């Protein structure tokens, strides 16, 4: 006979779980009591939101399922932002929440929350466990759905009495899903249709999203793009899928995308979408999105089709299968020569402008940092202006080399996510780039970093504003900087020191020299090569803006640029 908590942990091990992130509390205490000797390493964060973002960081860096644990009530509700984040960005995540005793459910007991109900629209699957015997099947099914198809978040809510009770355990369960009708088109048919569309196209382009990376089809995708040799660009989550040095690659597309990518997307007559859901940050005004284009959408999740524009040819299925199936036909097909279009789309006339204006020093600072990173690095960006600067400037050739909260845009994501990434990739240089607003949203995780002595390199781009909101206020609200002033920020260097983390400040004047002085260069080298956690606070010009920018509701061709 084993306790429910022991059964639970054995089932987690059977799913390959070795690392979990969490925060204990009343209803989940029996699970914590059984942790020692379970073979599972538990990382104590300082807030449940830190735990769920750290689990996301682990999942995003490795492709494995991230696991976060919290107690009932406030512990569970503190997970909710991370669950929504994982849903938007297709992150495989299993959240385990303690629940009040089964006899008390529905009585508004102490720390009771209907976590099953409140996460229904955020989860891919969830289960309120109703008996100790259900534990193995709930875990097997939960992990299956977290990984299957388009990955996503799962919640398993377990009453505390089932964790304490004892039952026979004959081993972890296996889950076999019931067969579902397939929407996939026959391979030959979609390939024929696609070749026919390509044959007629004069200005084809490829848009790469996170789905291409999640499918594990990066090599196949790169070979296909090499053969097609058409202009290609990526969403923020697609960054790293395409070799950034490929001659046809135009960088990031969308609200803060490159001029070349946005123009090519606006002018194309055939848009091949590989695993992107075409959200509003990518399309701009949907009624003027790629106005002349026919759309071919490679997608694993049918629910992502036609959200903003109807596509001519949906290709439903795992990109690891549909891309090679298509590629096989490309070699034999007689396709037009798109050299003229390529010369326009990828030409010098559309090359990025040199950094200028108030953002120049911050962009140079990031360039200096990124230029010094070794090849196995992972950059984690929080949410805001620094995120977009990082996405624009960091040219990772690794599909998991740039991690950020894209769909939900959750400030406070980066620091705890970096904890999960560094634990998963102990030999990698992990660079966490935050703003002064977002860093304070989960600043307590400095304690986690210190306790584990994780050599995370933390950067705060400190403009003493909620910078992206301020930028919008400047451009669209007549400079009414309502409640975005953070000029009374605490001294981050002193705060880091209180956590016994080494910290320094770098003034933007250090970036006036180009290239930077020996002294500044040495400082950046020391920062990146340290085997300890380090914090570097960069003083950014308060009114620096991110450009190019497509204003909300504008077409992608209507970009704003930094004035001379």
């Amino acid at each position, binding site marked *: 006979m084993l306790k429910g908590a022991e059964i639970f942990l054995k089932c987690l091990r059977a799913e390959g779980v070795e690392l979990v992130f969490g925060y204990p509390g009343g209803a989940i205490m029996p699970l914590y009591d059984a942790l020692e000797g379970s073979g599972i390493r538990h990382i104590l964060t300082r807030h449940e939101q830190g735990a769920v973002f750290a689990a996301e960081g682990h999942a995003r860096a490795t492709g494995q399922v991230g696991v976060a644990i919290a107690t009932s009530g406030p512990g569970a509700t503190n997970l909710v932002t991370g669950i929504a984040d994982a849903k938007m960005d297709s992150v495989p995540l299993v959240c385990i929440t303690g629940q009040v005793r089964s006899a008390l459910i529905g009585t508004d007991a102490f720390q009771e929350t209907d976590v099953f109900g409140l996460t229904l*629209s955020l989860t891919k699957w969830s289960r309120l466990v109703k008996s100790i015997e259900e534990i193995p099947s709930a875990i097997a099914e939960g992990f299956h759905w977290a990984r299957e198809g388009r990955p996503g978040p799962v919640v398993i809510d377990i009453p505390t009495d089932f964790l304490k009770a004892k039952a026979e355990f004959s081993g972890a369960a296996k889950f076999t899903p019931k067969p*579902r009708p397939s*929407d996939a088109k026959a391979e030959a048919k979609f390939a024929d249709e696609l070749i026919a569309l390509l044959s007629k196209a004069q200005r084809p382009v490829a848009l790469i999203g996170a789905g291409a990376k999640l499918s594990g089809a990066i090599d196949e995708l790169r070979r296909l793009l090499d053969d097609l040799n058409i202009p290609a660009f990526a969403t923020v989550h697609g960054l790293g899928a395409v070799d950034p040095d490929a001659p046809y690659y135009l960088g990031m597309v969308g609200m803060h995308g490159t001029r070349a990518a946005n123009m090519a997307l606006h002018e194309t007559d055939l848009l091949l979408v590989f695993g992107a859901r075409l959200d509003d940050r990518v399309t701009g005004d949907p009624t003027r999105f790629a106005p002349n284009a026919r759309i071919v959408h490679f997608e694993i*999740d049918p*629910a*992502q089709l*036609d*959200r903003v524009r*109807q596509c001519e040819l949906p290709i439903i299925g795992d990109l690891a299968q549909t891309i090679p199936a298509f590629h096989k036909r490309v070699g034999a097909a007689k396709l037009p020569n798109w050299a003229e279009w390529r010369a326009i789309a990828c030409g010098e006339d559309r090359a990025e402008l040199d950094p200028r204006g108030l953002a120049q020093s911050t962009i140079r600072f990031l360039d200096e940092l990124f230029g010094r990173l070794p090849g196995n690095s992972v950059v984690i960006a929080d949410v805001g202006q620094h995120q977009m600067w990082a996405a624009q400037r960091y040219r990772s050739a690794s599909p998991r080399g740039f991690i950020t909260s894209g769909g939900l845009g959750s400030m406070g994501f980066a620091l705890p996510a970096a904890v999960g990434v560094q634990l998963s990739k102990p030999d990698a240089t992990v660079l966490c780039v935050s703003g002064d607003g977002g860093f304070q949203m989960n600043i307590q995780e400095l304690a986690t970093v210190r306790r584990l002595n994780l050599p995370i390199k933390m950067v705060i781009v400190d403009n003493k504003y909620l910078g992206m909101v301020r930028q919008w206020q400047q451009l669209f609200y007549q400079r009414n900087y309502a409640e975005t002033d953070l000029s009374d920020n605490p001294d981050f260097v002193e705060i880091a020191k209180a956590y016994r983390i080494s910290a320094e400040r770098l003034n933007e004047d250090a970036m006036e020299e180009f290239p930077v002085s020996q002294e500044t260069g040495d400082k950046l080298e020391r920062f990146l090569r340290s085997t300890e956690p380090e914090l570097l606070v960069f003083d950014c010009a308060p009114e620096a803006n991110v450009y190019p920018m497509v204003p909300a509701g504008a077409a992608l061709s209507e970009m704003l640029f930094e004035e001379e």
Partner: protein
Amino acid sequence: MHAFHIEYHNTQGTLMRILTAVSRRGLEVPYVHSAASGRVHRADLLLEVNAKQIGQLCRDWHAIVDVTDVRVSTPTPEMLELIAFAGPHPPSSAASDGRSSAAMA
């Protein structure tokens, strides 16, 4: 008005997931009925939706783990009769017959 017929395995939360796909779009649900139908369950809904929403809803429902089939049809006369009989649900304040306002006064 369109009728939607969703077949699903009656597992925890599946019916609620079907309904939240509707409520997240701010749509009213004038008619919903769910019952066992052979080896699965079937939910019938009447919704006032445009063509784009039909596609979105059907795909959202298909993406729910335990949904097995989704179909769209024109409403039956019986369904329409039930809606006409029930009428729309007004906010409780608007439905007041005057007693509550008198009490407030």
